C-alpha cells in the first residue's frame, strides 16, 4: 500500500520569521533569506473567549498552524510534539516543590499531551478521531507515518499538526530548542481542487545523506527544533518540485519521501 500516492492539500508553517504567509512563501521558495522575527501572541480566532483565555503558548501555536488549513467535520487530526507543554511541566513542578503543593486545576487539565486536540475539537466542533503522539527528536517523522497510515486505512482526510515550543528557563539546560516551530499538512487519499502535490514514503535502513533545507538560511530552524526536520519537505511542496527528501527517523532509520507532481 505504501507505494500509493497521498495528496497534500495544504501546508503551513509557523516559526519566528515564518508567520506572515506571503513572506513565508518567498522564504520557503528560496527567494528571500530567513530572519528571526519574533512571533505574535497567536490569538486563536475560532475558540470561544472563555476557552481561549485558558490556552497556553503551546496550545496557541498548535491551534494557529491548524487554522491555516481548511478542515471539515470529516477531518481527523494527528498531533505530533516531542515535548508537549514544558511551560506547564515547569509551573506544576514548581508548585509541587512548595509545602502545600497547590496545583492549578486549569494547568493540570491543560498539561495532557492532547490538550491542543481537545481545544481544536471544541473550536471547530470536530468529533472525528484525533491522536497525539511523540517520538522524541523524530516526532515529525512519526507524525507523518501515523498520518499516512490513517489516510491509507481510514476514510477521513487527515491534518498533521506538528509543533514544539522553546523550553522555559529552568529546563532549558536539559532540553534546549532554538526556536518554536509548528508545521501543518492536510493529506487525502484522492486528488482535490486545492491539491498542491503528492507524496509517498518508505522507511529506509541504509544511511544516506539527510536532505538539508533548499534555502540554506533555514538550516538553523531545521536544526533548532525537532519539528524543523519537516522543513525540507515543506519547501519541496511549496516549490512544486518533484524530488526525494530524506528525513531522519528513530533506530538509525530514515524516511524517504518521494515528492511527486499533482
Amino acid at each position, binding site marked *: *500500500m*505504501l507505494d500509493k500516492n497521498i495528496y497534500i492539500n495544504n501546508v503551513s508553517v509557523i516559526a519566528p520569521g515564518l508567520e506572515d504567509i506571503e513572506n513565508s512563501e518567498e522564504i520557503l521558495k528560496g527567494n528571500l533569506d530567513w530572519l528571526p522575527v519574533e512571533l505574535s501572541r497567536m490569538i486563536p480566532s475560532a475558540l470561544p473567549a472563555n476557552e481561549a483565555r*485558558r490556552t497556553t503558548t503551546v496550545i496557541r501555536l498548535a491551534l494557529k498552524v491548524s487554522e491555516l488549513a481548511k478542515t471539515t467535520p470529516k477531518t481527523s487530526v494527528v498531533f505530533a510534539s*516531542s*515535548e*508537549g507543554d514544558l511551560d506547564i*511541566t515547569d509551573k*506544576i*513542578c*514548581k*508548585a*509541587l*516543590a512548595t509545602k502545600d*503543593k*497547590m*496545583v*492549578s486545576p486549569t494547568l*493540570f*487539565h*491543560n*498539561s*495532557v*499531551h*492532547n*490538550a491542543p*486536540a*481537545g481545544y481544536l*475539537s*471544541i473550536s471547530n*466542533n*470536530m*468529533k*472525528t*478521531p*484525533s*491522536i*497525539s*503522539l*511523540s*517520538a*522524541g*527528536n523524530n*516526532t515529525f517523522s*512519526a507524525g507523518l*507515518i501515523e498520518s*499516512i*497510515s*490513517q489516510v*491509507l*486505512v*481510514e476514510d477521513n482526510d487527515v491534518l498533521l499538526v506538528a509543533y514544539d515550543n522553546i523550553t522555559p528557563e*529552568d*529546563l532549558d539546560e*536539559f*532540553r534546549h530548542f532554538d526556536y518554536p516551530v509548528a508545521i501543518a499538512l492536510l493529506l487525502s487519499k484522492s486528488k482535490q481542487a486545492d491539491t498542491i502535490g503528492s507524496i509517498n514514503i518508505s*522507511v529506509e*535502513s541504509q544511511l544516506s545523506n539527510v536532505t538539508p533545507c533548499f534555502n540554506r538560511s533555514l538550516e538553523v530552524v531545521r536544526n533548532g527544533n525537532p519539528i524543523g526536520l519537516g522543513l525540507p519537505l515543506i519547501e519541496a511542496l511549496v516549490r512544486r518540485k518533484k524530488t526525494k527528501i530524506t528525513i531522519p527517523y*528513530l*533506530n538509525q*532509520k530514515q524516511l524517504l519521501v518521494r515528492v511527486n507532481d499533482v
Partner: protein
Amino acid sequence: MIRPIHPLKISASTLVNALGVGKKYTTNAMLGGYSGLRRSKFPDMNFDTFLGLVNKVEGVELEDELVKFTCRNNKLAKLALDTDNFREDVKGAISKYGKNRIGVFLGTSTSGIAETESAYINRDGKSGKLPSMDMLYTDNTSSIQRYVCRSLGLSGVSMTISTACSSSAKVFASAYRSIESGFCDAAIVGGVDSLCLTTLYGFNSLQLISEDICRPWDKQRNGINIGEAAGFMLLERSNECKGVCLTGYGESSDAYHISSPHPEGDGGKMAMESALSAAGVKASDIDYVNLHGTATPSNDQSESRGLYSIFGDEIACSSTKGMTGHTLGAAGINEAIICMLSLENSIIPANVNLNSIDDQLPIQVVTKSVKKTLKHVMSNSFGFGGSNCSLIFSC
C-alpha cells in the same frame, strides 16, 4: 476502512498492576472479585486516598547499557517485559519477522515526569539550580517507546501515543493501521503509567480523587483512586480468529469540554458504534463490556447513558477500576488484557467495592463474578480532551 477489519491475533501478553506481577494475579482477582487497592502513601504526598501501587517496582534495575532511561515508569515497563514469558515470545517473533518489521506502539500520560518533579524538590538552595537530569530519556513522552525498543532489540516503526486516559487503547488503532498499510508486519502494543505527584495533586485539584476506596457505579461514588500499571501485547495478522483477537476499534472526540465528558455520553457512544461497525458485529453480539467506569459522578453517568443508547439495559458490564485503580495512560492496555483474560477464562469479572448500586444509572453492573463462555467483549477508554476509544476482542 475495510469492514470488518482484519483480525489481529494476540500471540503474547504481560501485565503488571496493583493485583500483582503477572497476568495470573489479575485472573485470580477477576475470579474472586477482590481489590488490589490499599490505603497508602506515596513519597511527598500529604492527603489521604487509596492507591494501586506496584511495590516491586522499587527494586527494579534497568540494563547497564540503558541505565540513562532510569525512572519509575521505565522500571515498571521492565518489570512487565520480564514477566509472563514476554521477552522470549518477542524473541520468537523477531526470528519470524525480523527486528525491523515489528512496530512498537505504546501509551503513557506522564512518562518519567517523577524525575523532573524530584529535581525541582531537590533544587540547590543557594544557586537555585536544578540537579542534572537527562529529560529526553526520562521526562519525554517517548522515553518509554525508546526504552522498550532498545530493551527488546526492536528497530521498526515506533511511536508513543499520549491522549490522557485513552492512550494505550488508541495504540491498537495505530498498530492496526501500520500493519495494514505496510509499515510493519507485527506490533508490540502496550502502555505504562506510574504514580507521580503531578497526577496525584492534579486530579486532587480537580476534586476527582476519593479519600475512600473508589466505588464505580455506586450511589456514593466520589472519585478515582490512582493506580499504576504496565502491560504489553504482541499482535500478529491472522486469517482466522484463533485464540483471542482484536476485531474492532472505534475512536471519537467529544468536542465538548477539556476535562468533563459529554453529559449524555455522545462521544463514547460514537466510539462504541464505530468499534461495532469495524468488527462487523451488532450490539446484541457483545457478551460483556469492560467499562471506563472511573467512579467519578460525571464519568459513570455519562458512560451509562452512552451505553444505554446502544445496548439498552440488557448488557453485562463492569468496571475493574475498583480492583486496579485508574491506571490512566495504562488503563487501555490494563483493561484490554482484562478483556482477553475474560475471554480466555470465561469470566465476567465483578464490579467490586459497591455498597449500594446507583439505581439512577440506566445500566446496572455485574456485582458477582460469573463464569460464562464469551465470544465478543468490548473495552471502553475515555480521556481528558474528550478523547474516546472503544476496542472489541473476540475468540
